[in-house]
């Protein structure tokens, strides 16, 4: 590409050429090239650890490549630095948004631009019109004076997008933009993406969610183990072929649920559960060996119901019975004593000790059940449980002594699940069990859940990932505005029905 300026091959906004990056002898990127054109949405897909994040860091200047070039406006950079990237019009919206929680929306939007212009003085009043203009132009409803830490995840993302655009960004890279969003928020984001595209912005999406990838992008680039596998028009691809290229083999996500015996006993019985401001009058049952899906939009109360059953947000009214016996769930200890386990949404901060080993994390929740009669730890039984779970969940790590921080998302999730399996709960609730996990790991995690259910555990999956619910759940509860509005069963469970019922 010397200088293609004819109309059928427009000038690339950003070119990545033969980028190589190794970390301590391990090749993260092996000669990856990529072109990004104005007005296109380009999707970067690949499994966890395929090198997507490394590529983004190199483009944004957070990491320096071992060799290769980044070309913006015919200027060849052998390595970017953050300021140069921002000056060249490259903006990265990270998964964590990298906003300042202690500052207002207006200031978050204006500050980065002021930094890039190397301003010395700052005026809150003067920076406001620019922020207001971009918010108005995108037709958003954002409170400019609110502190960012008080915003919802979706609004934080909108703030990050405004911040990118206020600085005349020509290339916007979004890392996993839809992970934390619900169905409606995703469609709102996509209409915003269309508007940015119309402004001639080149967008790069990094995503796990294949249906979304195909809906929004014009071209797709797939990486596998640090290598470029293919770049193709989105129209020529379908989820199955993308999955095949990402994983190197076929992955089956068809509905695969076991047949529950008719006399399977009821394990959990919830009646009239209510908590003011969160949900009301929730009644359902969960049988032995059943996988029950709980779905709804963000803020519908789906998470709060699970947290109530786990004693984090004790319900104000209603009764809960476990195996016919009424239980009080006023604290987490109550829930654990009743045989209820919960894998939270934000597993990195709530479910794991990141610096500790896999083994320590696995056993952390069940120390009480691994005691000798002298109340000391029974180390041989502990070792046995750990090795058993490590093998059963097929965790990819050199050994059980590796720290959890070194694991990929999918494997870290398995460690959290293992922690609860070690405790042998009767009911295991999982919130977003495959959020941020790639397709291959996702199927394996669902397989683990199926196997545990077949072995007699009752499982609740709280999720708004419709394909995942379809593939694994016997029944699906749909929560809307804090109420249980539908219980889907058997043939009723399909992706469109779930999404319609959630949003209606």
């Amino acid at each position, binding site marked *: 590409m010397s200088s293609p300026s004819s109309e059928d091959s427009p000038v690339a906004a950003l070119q990545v050429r033969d980028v190589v990056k190794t970390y301590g002898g391990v090749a993260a990127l092996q000669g990856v090239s990529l072109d990004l054109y104005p007005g296109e949405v380009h999707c970067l897909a690949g499994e966890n650890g395929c090198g997507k994040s490394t590529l983004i860091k190199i483009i944004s200047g957070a990491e320096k490549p071992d060799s290769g070039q980044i070309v913006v406006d015919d200027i060849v950079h052998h390595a970017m630095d953050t300021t140069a990237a921002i000056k060249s019009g490259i903006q990265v919206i990270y998964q964590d948004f*990298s906003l*300042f*929680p*202690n500052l207002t929306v207006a200031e978050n939007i204006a500050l980065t631009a002021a930094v890039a212009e190397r301003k010395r003085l700052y005026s809150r009043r003067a920076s406001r019109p620019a922020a207001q203009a971009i918010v108005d132009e995108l037709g958003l409803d954002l409170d400019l004076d609110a502190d960012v830490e008080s915003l*919802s995840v979706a609004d934080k993302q909108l703030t990050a997008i405004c911040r990118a655009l206020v600085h005349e960004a020509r290339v916007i890279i979004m890392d996993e933009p839809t992970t934390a969003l619900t169905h409606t928020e995703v469609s709102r984001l996509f209409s915003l993406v269309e508007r940015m595209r119309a402004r001639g912005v080149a967008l790069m999406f990094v995503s796990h969610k294949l249906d979304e990838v195909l809906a929004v992008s014009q071209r797709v680039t797939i990486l596998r183990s640090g290598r470029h596998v293919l770049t193709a028009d989105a129209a020529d691809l379908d989820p199955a072929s993308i999955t095949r290229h990402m994983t190197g083999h076929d992955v089956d996500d068809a509905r695969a649920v076991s047949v529950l015996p008719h006399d399977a006993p009821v394990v959990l019985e919830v009646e009239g559960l209510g908590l003011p401001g969160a949900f009301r009058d929730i009644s359902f049952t969960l049988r032995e060996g059943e996988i029950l899906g709980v779905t709804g939009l963000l803020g519908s109360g789906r998470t709060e119901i699970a947290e109530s059953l786990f004693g984090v947000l004790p319900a104000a009214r209603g009764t809960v019975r476990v195996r016919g016996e009424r239980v009080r769930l006023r604290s987490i200890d109550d829930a654990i004593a009743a045989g209820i386990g919960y894998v939270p949404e934000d597993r990195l901060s709530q479910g794991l000790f990141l610096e500790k080993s896999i083994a320590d994390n696995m056993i952390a929740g069940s120390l009480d059940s691994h005691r000798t009669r002298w109340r000391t730890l029974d180390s041989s039984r502990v070792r046995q449980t750990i090795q058993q779970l490590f093998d059963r969940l097929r965790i990819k790590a050199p050994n059980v002594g590796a720290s959890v921080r070194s694991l990929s998302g999918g494997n870290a999730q398995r460690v959290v699940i293992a922690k609860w399996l070690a405790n042998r709960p009767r009911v295991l609730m999982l919130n977003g069990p495959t959020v941020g996990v790639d397709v291959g790991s996702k199927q394996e995690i669902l397989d683990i859940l199926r196997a545990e259910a077949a072995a007699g555990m009752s499982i609740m999956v709280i999720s708004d990932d419709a394909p995942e619910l379809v593939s694994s759940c016997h029944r699906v509860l749909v929560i809307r505005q804090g109420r249980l509005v539908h219980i889907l069963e058997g043939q009723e469970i399909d992706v469109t029905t779930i999404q319609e019922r959630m949003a209606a």
Partner: protein
Amino acid sequence: MNTSGSSVSVLRRLRGANNEGVLALILIGLVLAMSAANPAFFTLPTMFAIVRSSIVPLIFALGVLIVIISGGIDVSFAAIAVFAAYTTVRFSTSITDPGLIGAFALALLVGAGLGLVNGAVIARFKLPTLIVTLGTQGIFKGALLTYIGSRYIADLPGSMAAVSTTNVVEISVDGRDAYLHVMAVPALLLCLAVAWMLRRTMFGRGIYAIGGDQEAARRAGFRVVRIQVLMYVLVGMLAAVGGMAYQIMGRSSSPQELVGGELDIIAAVVLGGASIFGGRGSVLGTTLGVLVVQVIGNSLILAGVPSAWQRAAVGGLLIVGVGVQALAAKKSGRRVHTNVDDPAPEPEPEAEREREGARA
């Protein structure tokens, strides 16, 4: 909806971003309560005495505030202050008196150098600020006693001594004279300068940004290392001014003073609404925090409480200040999020009140 919205925003502004309004109310309440209990309290001489006793803590508190906003904590400022001030006095008395401006310039230079040590170590090696400044506190104090001197100097050099007895306001009320020390003027100017720096310069906003999220600040293009180093240099200079003010007002110089009193200053800053988690705090809040601590100390003296208990009172205030922040953080973290307006509210009045409470 509109009127209630605007009244809420007026309340929000009166309350202040860091609860400055609440703190002002507490201060007024304290003063009124003390005046009611003891008529001798509510007089101009007492007020001026409280202001006078606040001058040095306030200058120190400005430095501590800056560090706390950036997400750190500094316990070496007292050591820097005494190092810079004592070195200056020692130089002036044994070699030559450089005049008032020269003395301050020398102290600022020494303060900047010691601050640079803090900043370089913290920014370069990304070490926890508490541990680094605890270490440098010991090093600075030790170096001072070893290399500069350990002798108590009873007479300040002429240029500084002249300022010791200068008052900016002298009023005679009912036969009692009220004096306001001249050092109140630089303290006030420093407050204004630091407030301007924090609010209106990119350097100041960078300090807030680093305190909010250091990685995000780096990604946004702030030169984090540079800002941190500069900031500690500045804080070292503030400490030096505080040390000079302390000696001028005390009319003597001793290398054994100041270090050990850090708790009062940090307590005042935290009480003044600066978040121990970083990213929040204001000069107004800090000023009010310093005044509250001084008024409480003064009240305890008037009430005849042994001075040993004043330390306990300050310690208690620190815990209260931090505790309030932790509770507030916990409360907002625990809040139930439902972004859907309820079409049919439940009849229970109790539930209604709870929802109102959550909205407010």
